[in-house]
């Protein structure tokens, strides 16, 4: 199953098992979404459960907040993460704080799905990874799956969660695991073990990372597309790295991270978003604080550059396997 199919499957399961779930967004209803994540759902579940909205991210999220506070569970789509900014006020000032400011009287159980990341020649408005803009906000949870299996389980967990969850979908791996080698033939989820997606409902708990590859020489922290880049980089570079797929950025599975780094004593942090104040900063800050006595080298970050995402030169922007491997080698060489 592709990640798109897994997401659709999760939405289908949720719509079927919980009459409170609604699914809406731009082109989400009749058409089934520009990435087809909701294809067929309106036909199957009816248009009160899955419908099109006007092009207003503010309206989509604002209406979803009201609907959630009424008692439904909206799962909305922002067509690209790059277009979430008009809804940012509603997310930060409203969804995230409603439970707190009403002391639990009103709550906001909702999921905001959005495709993130580059690698599709989408340039500055179809490539961004704004996760750090969510992790800074108390009251939000932020999830980034790296494969179809997790996408379904995490999305169902997000829908079941009593609080607002930001669900970031790395669009470059919608149709196949992408290791950053943009010049090689595309591979399909079909041939990947995590492309196997169980039927029916299951959830993966929010806040649990998973070790994708055990290793002894250093720890690589990654999420989304970068998990695959990390695996390729350490594999090709013959690096004995432990690769951790964070899956949930907030709440963060700090224990899995610190256990690993205390073992390997070295750490590289990856993301596609710009460096400064990216989520990697938080990870580096936490790792140096928690593993100070174990660290044998500074935590290094490999990220997108501090520029907007370019079009033609997107592969020079993308933190591909070569940059990741080089960083790992640098960190390993520190004596």
């Amino acid at each position, binding site marked *: 199953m592709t990640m798109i199919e897994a997401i659709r499957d999760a939405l289908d399961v949720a719509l079927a098992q919980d009459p409170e779930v609604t699914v809406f967004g731009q082109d989400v209803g009749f058409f089934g979404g520009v990435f087809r994540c909701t294809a067929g759902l309106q036909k199957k579940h009816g248009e009160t459960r899955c419908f099109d909205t006007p092009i207003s991210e503010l309206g989509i999220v604002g*209406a979803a907040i009201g609907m959630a506070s009424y008692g439904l569970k909206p799962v909305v789509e922002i067509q690209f993460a790059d277009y979430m900014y008009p809804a940012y006020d509603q997310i930060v*000032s409203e969804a995230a704080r409603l439970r707190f400011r009403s002391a639990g*009287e009103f709550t906001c159980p909702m999921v905001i799905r959005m495709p993130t990341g580059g690698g599709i020649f989408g340039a500055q408005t179809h490539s961004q990874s704004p996760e750090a803009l969510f992790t800074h906000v108390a009251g939000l949870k932020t999830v980034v799956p790296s494969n179809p299996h997790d996408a379904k389980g995490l999305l169902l967990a997000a829908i079941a969660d009593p609080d607002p969850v930001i669900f970031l979908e790395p669009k470059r791996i919608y149709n196949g695991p992408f290791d950053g080698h943009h010049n090689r033939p595309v591979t399909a989820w079909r041939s990947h073990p995590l492309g196997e997606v169980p039927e029916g409902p299951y959830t993966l708990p929010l806040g649990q990372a998973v070790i994708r590859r055990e290793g002894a020489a250093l720890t690589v922290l990654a999420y989304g597309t970068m998990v695959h880049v990390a695996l390729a980089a350490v594999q090709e570079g013959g690096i004995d790295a432990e690769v951790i797929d964070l899956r949930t950025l907030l709440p963060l599975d700090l224990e899995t991270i610190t256990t690993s780094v205390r073992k390997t004593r070295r750490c590289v942090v990856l993301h596609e978003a710009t460096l400064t104040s990216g989520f990697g900063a938080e990870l580096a800050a936490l790792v140096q604080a928690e593993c100070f006595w174990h660290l044998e080298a500074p935590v290094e970050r490999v990220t997108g550059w501090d520029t907007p995402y370019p079009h033609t030169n997107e592969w020079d922007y993308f933190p591909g396997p070569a940059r990741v491997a080089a960083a790992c080698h640098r960190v390993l060489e520190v004596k």
Partner: protein
Amino acid sequence: MTHTALSLRFAAPDVRPGAAPDFSQFQVPVAGEMPRPAIDATPETLRDLAFGMIRVLDDTGQAVGPWADMPDLTDDMRREGLRHMLKLRAYDARMLLAQRQQKPSFYMQHLGEEAVSCAFQRALRPGDMNFPTYRQAGLLIASGYPVKTMMCQVYGNDGDPVRGRQLPVFYSSKEHGFFSISGNLGTQYIQAVGWAMGSAIAGDDKIAAAWIGDGSTAESDFHAAMVFASTYRAPVVLNIVNNQWAISTFQGLARGGAGSFAARGHGFGIPALRVDGNDYLAVLAVARWATERARANLGPTLIEHVTYRAAGHSTSDDPSAYRPSDEDACWPLGDPVLRLKQHLIARGAWSAERHIQAEAEVMAEIAAAQRKAEAIGTLHSGRRPSPAEMFDDVYAEMPPHLRRQRQQAGF
């Protein structure tokens, strides 16, 4: 080719401090003149209602015209309305004083606008939901919410249901159909539409009421609300309280070139009414019309309540810096309390004596509540919510990082 040097228009109120108040530009329509169309009339035929003004009480206190036609409205109900307004006014007066004594950090009054929220509430049913601004406490008062609890919120003491987390007057009561106030202007307008959509999707019969100030209609959320309400025909009443001022800027700034705020509805095919907001009966009549429309699945109605913010914006504001200090006394639509009082007296259902007595009773009630609230605490003294609670309700379940921080904080 002609070349004119371009320039902008900078709209300004007719008078500024130092000059005499001047409402000669403000036309007061004759009471009873506006027609009362059927609730399923098409938006096109309702157009004039957005430019005129629905008024029921005339200068002599008579209820006149088609909007006065509320046969079920007993004298008791009318007296109750008066009492709600008196109570809100007394509450405001006490809290204003308390703020001067620094018992709460801040306060916001309703002086002159009491009819809007007090009357509107009477058209709602249990289960309906308001998405209010900070200037609709009348919705709580008229629904019987305990004044003592309101005061505890204002003081942020241990009796505050929202645990000292919010600015004073940012109440919340699900039971009383009063959604937690945000503080970010406008945001809740679209949420009200979403709540109403939720009710309709669930096949429920509850409706929502959205509230916004004249100045705040400029915010983006206003537009989102209009678009969504129009597109899905949501069961929501969209209220604009035009109290002439947005802190220091007059309503003409946000209104721009439009004849009224109600006119904003026309671009969306949303029926729009303009009502004398200082006329308790007019507000009630209009609220009933709009809520009936919503309940009958006829969709949203936009209501512009024309009123006047007689006091400062908040306790942090001194309006004499930007408008004549006696402007409130000259406001052509009068005082909502006096007008309903006059009406009741004209009906033979009230008297000057009973009014004085009612004022005294209400004040005693408020003072008693205040004593109880202060027995719990004020901002700087008495029992306040434990700081440990600060870490609660960020999430339903406290995640590890917050548990750690709470420990670090010593709890």
